[in-house]
């Protein structure tokens, strides 16, 4: 009897080690998002919060190395990085064998292996007109035969069974993608969470509610979802054997991470509980009370949490009071630019004439950016001087594009172009009409803080400013219909390549991501040429020229790029933040 039991236990142990399951279900990681998620169908989401969950449930073909900086792509479910044809158009992926989906009733009680067809299906879903994927812009017009298939579908479901030259499987484990044009960013694009593999059976069985039924091959599965309040992930028992085996980068912390994690079977943490906490005070207090294990530092708490050197505010260290407790602090520059755009089609601030340009330039010169970096960002941001941020292919650190803060000269410039002061002391347009500018803004407390500084800028120029307060979707709609005059936005990298940023002022994107409606023939020509070039000095030259056009024409006022400060409790092991991957839960461990 005794013996038999032992044997059974041993057998179980072998089975478990066989499919690589090592997560400790008693280890629970507590984290918070500061805004609600929308759902977990990779093809239907675009917000960072949903992606953070999706990237833990689904596997894209390629992913990023956890430790390497600058970021480096590595194979994920593939044997190796894809083979790419000489002309950069044909990508061939060979999948690893023996990767299984998490169990689901749709699989009829059988283990379901991941095959190339799953990726073909998943990518085609982004093209499907009935799905309206927010990321369809990444795939539309890209694959050979794709547009024709979409056109054939009209308003109906895409015909997934029809042969498609651009997205096809060569055998059970081989996927081949054929592009219409050379594109050097395809591997980056395919590493995004939205390109994770879904199983067609699951999608079809839950067609009415794919958002709530994510079933993938990733390290975690969705255990519980209370929309807008709570998400619980649990380690996926079917997850393939995945061992922590990363090489250190130049970063000093990597040695410790490798020491703590090397050879461990991933994921270590059995359960991840994500709650939504929108307010900053509770988020910060909850971290201090160890109710959260990992948390960003909210902007108002930065001064208290960090010791910021006034001589170099970008070099901040953790407040000794927290460092003594063993709290870990990491920081990195986000791969983003913030900017305020002028609507170039607007009759007051837009247009190519010199007097309009002078008005835009004067406003740019009057905005006290350094003050906002000091007061709102608490020094945890650097000015934007180039359309492409640091860490993204094509960035030029030598370039300085931001207009210098000089409200006095800005006033003199306005005088020169005939923006005279009226009897009430406020400026009028050169044609004598009253001058008043409408600035679009949200209604949160942080928006109001920014508006204080914009108000100050406009006051210093003696230009009337009014506020158009609206919800994000309302402003977005009006922006795309060219009804706004000015609005401040941020753009984060979808993939670390300059093309993802330079497209923001491409004329053909007007009414879409080109909110400024900037249409400059020379810029457009340069942009089109840049698409045909890989990252390198030749393309950088084009990017420099394009940036010069932007600086000269001033469709944007450059803002800042934030430095994100993230803290982790002492017992979180192997923790490192990644500039592109939202969450690193699968790579860390808890040792309380």
């Amino acid at each position, binding site marked *: 009897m005794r013996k038999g039991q032992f044997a059974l236990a041993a057998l179980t142990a072998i089975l478990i080690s066989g499919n690589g399951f090592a997560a400790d279900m008693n280890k629970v990681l507590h984290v*918070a998002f500061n805004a*609600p*998620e*929308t*759902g977990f169908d990779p093809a*239907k989401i*675009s917000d960072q919060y949903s992606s953070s969950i999706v990237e833990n449930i689904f596997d894209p073909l390629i992913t990023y190395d956890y430790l390497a900086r600058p970021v480096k792509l590595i194979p994920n479910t593939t044997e190796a990085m894809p083979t790419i044809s000489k002309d950069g158009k044909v990508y061939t992926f060979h999948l690893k064998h023996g990767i299984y989906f998490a169990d689901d009733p749709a699989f009829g009680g059988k283990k379901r292996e991941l095959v190339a067809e799953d990726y073909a299906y998943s990518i085609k879903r982004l093209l499907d*007109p*009935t799905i*309206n*994927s*927010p*990321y*369809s*812009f990444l795939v*539309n017009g890209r694959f050979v035969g794709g547009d024709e298939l979409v056109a054939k579908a009209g*308003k109906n479901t895409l015909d997934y069974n029809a042969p498609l030259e651009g997205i096809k499987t060569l055998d059970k484990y081989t996927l081949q993608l054929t592009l219409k044009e050379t594109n050097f960013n395809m591997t980056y694009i395919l590493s995004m969470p939205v390109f994770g593999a879904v199983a067609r059976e699951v999608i079809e069985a839950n067609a009415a*509610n*794919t*958002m*709530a039924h994510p079933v993938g091959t990733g390290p975690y599965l969705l255990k519980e979802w*209370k*929309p*807008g*309040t*709570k998400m619980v992930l649990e380690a996926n028992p079917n997850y393939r054997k995945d061992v922590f085996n990363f090489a250190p980068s130049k970063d000093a912390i990597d040695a410790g991470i490798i020491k703590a994690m090397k050879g461990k079977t991933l994921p270590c943490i059995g359960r991840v509980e994500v*709650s*939504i*906490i*929108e*307010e900053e*005070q*509770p988020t910060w*207090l*909850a971290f*201090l*009370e160890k*109710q959260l294990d990992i948390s960003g530092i909210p902007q108002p708490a930065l001064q208290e949490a960090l010791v910021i050197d006034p001589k170099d505010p970008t070099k901040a260290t953790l407040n000794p009071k927290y460092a003594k407790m063993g709290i870990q602090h990491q920081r990195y520059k986000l791969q983003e630019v913030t900017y305020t755009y002028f609507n170039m089609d607007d009759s007051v601030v837009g247009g190519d004439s010199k007097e309009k340009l002078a008005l835009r330039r004067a406003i740019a010169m009057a905005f006290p950016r350094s003050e906002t970096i000091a007061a709102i960002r608490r020094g945890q941001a650097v000015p934007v001087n180039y359309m492409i941020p640091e860490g993204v292919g094509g960035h030029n650190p030598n370039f300085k594009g931001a207009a210098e803060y000089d409200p006095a000269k800005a006033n003199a410039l306005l005088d020169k172009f005939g923006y005279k002061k009226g009897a009430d002391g406020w400026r009028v347009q050169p044609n004598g009409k009253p001058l008043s500018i409408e600035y679009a803004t949200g209604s949160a407390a942080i928006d109001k803080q920014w508006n204080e500084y914009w108000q100050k800028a406009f006051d210093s120029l003696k230009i009337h400013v009014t506020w158009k307060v609206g*919800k*994000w*979707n*309302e402003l*977005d*709609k009006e922006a*795309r219909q060219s009804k706004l005059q000015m609005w401040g936005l941020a753009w984060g990298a*979808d993939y670390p390549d300059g093309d993802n940023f330079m497209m923001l002022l491409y004329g053909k*994107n007007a009414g*879409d*991501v080109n909110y400024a409606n900037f249409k400059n023939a020379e810029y457009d020509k340069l942009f089109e040429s840049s698409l045909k070039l890989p990252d390198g000095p030749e393309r950088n030259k084009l990017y420099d020229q394009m940036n010069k056009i932007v600086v000269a024409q001033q469709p944007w006022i450059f803002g800042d790029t934030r430095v994100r400060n993230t803290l982790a409790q002492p017992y979180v092991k192997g923790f490192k933040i990644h500039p592109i991957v939202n969450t690193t839960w699968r790579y860390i461990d808890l040792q309380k």
Partner: protein
Amino acid sequence: MFAYIIRRVLQMIPTIFGVMLLLFILFNWVGGDPSYILAGKSMNATTLANIRAQLGLDKSQFAQFLIFVKQVATLNFGISWSNQQPVSSILAARVGPSVTLTGFIMLVSTVLSISMASLVAYVRGSLTDRMVTLICTTAMSVSALVYIIAGQFWLAHKLGWFPVLGWGDSFAKNLVTYLPLPVLLGVIVSLAPDLRFYRSCFVEEMNHDYVRTARAKGLSEPKIMLKHVMRNALIPVVTSIMMSLPYLLVGALLLETFFAIPGMGREVIMAVDKSDFPVIKAITIYIAILTMIFNLLADIVYKLIDPRVQLK
């Protein structure tokens, strides 16, 4: 009585219709276009048109209103526009925390304020009475926002008496761990106005002639207080409680926000923010129905407390 109830229920129909009309006009006018949220970072006209068609936004206003009527008649509001979950399941998940939180606040506050109010009313005009009134008035003068921010900061963070925030799955855990601080703060905010209101109800009753008559008849003060005054004063008390019951659902927005409690108030804000019209419609209609039902119940309770009340 039965006929009365039937008549009152029938009267609800035009009111519900009015609520629907108001809601429909307001949110079609100002609610925002949800397709811009769903379309994401980059979009084209076709995608937007497809989304609008899927949401039924391309139908005529009249057709959309008819759908609304059908939804109200069946109490099935379909799926949320923002996360595509059934509205019923979203609301079901929210009702529990809301009712637990505000229910407890109301329970504690009502019990405390009625007992304190009757005591204070009993010694009306005394120094104690005046002190209690003054303290209540001063306590009421501080904004609920200040109580919550300061309470969370000092009581939970600095002193560590309570967890900073949170909400669990088990009722017992919530009751013992997560509820005490928000309930305490909620009671602080609502106790003073309740106490003042109930005191005035009691005092007003005590000034009535019948109290003097009872006293002249030689009835003891406690007996007068319990038998006559309390019973009559209960009418405004019951009304005030009944009327506030439907607001239990959305009333504790600030507490929910600061303590990360998954209640209805946050859902309303979120739904408005994301132009999630089905959720807004469902919450409003349910609250409207509840308001009317509780109004009716209040009237019936009057009758039970005081048989002299005529139901008209």
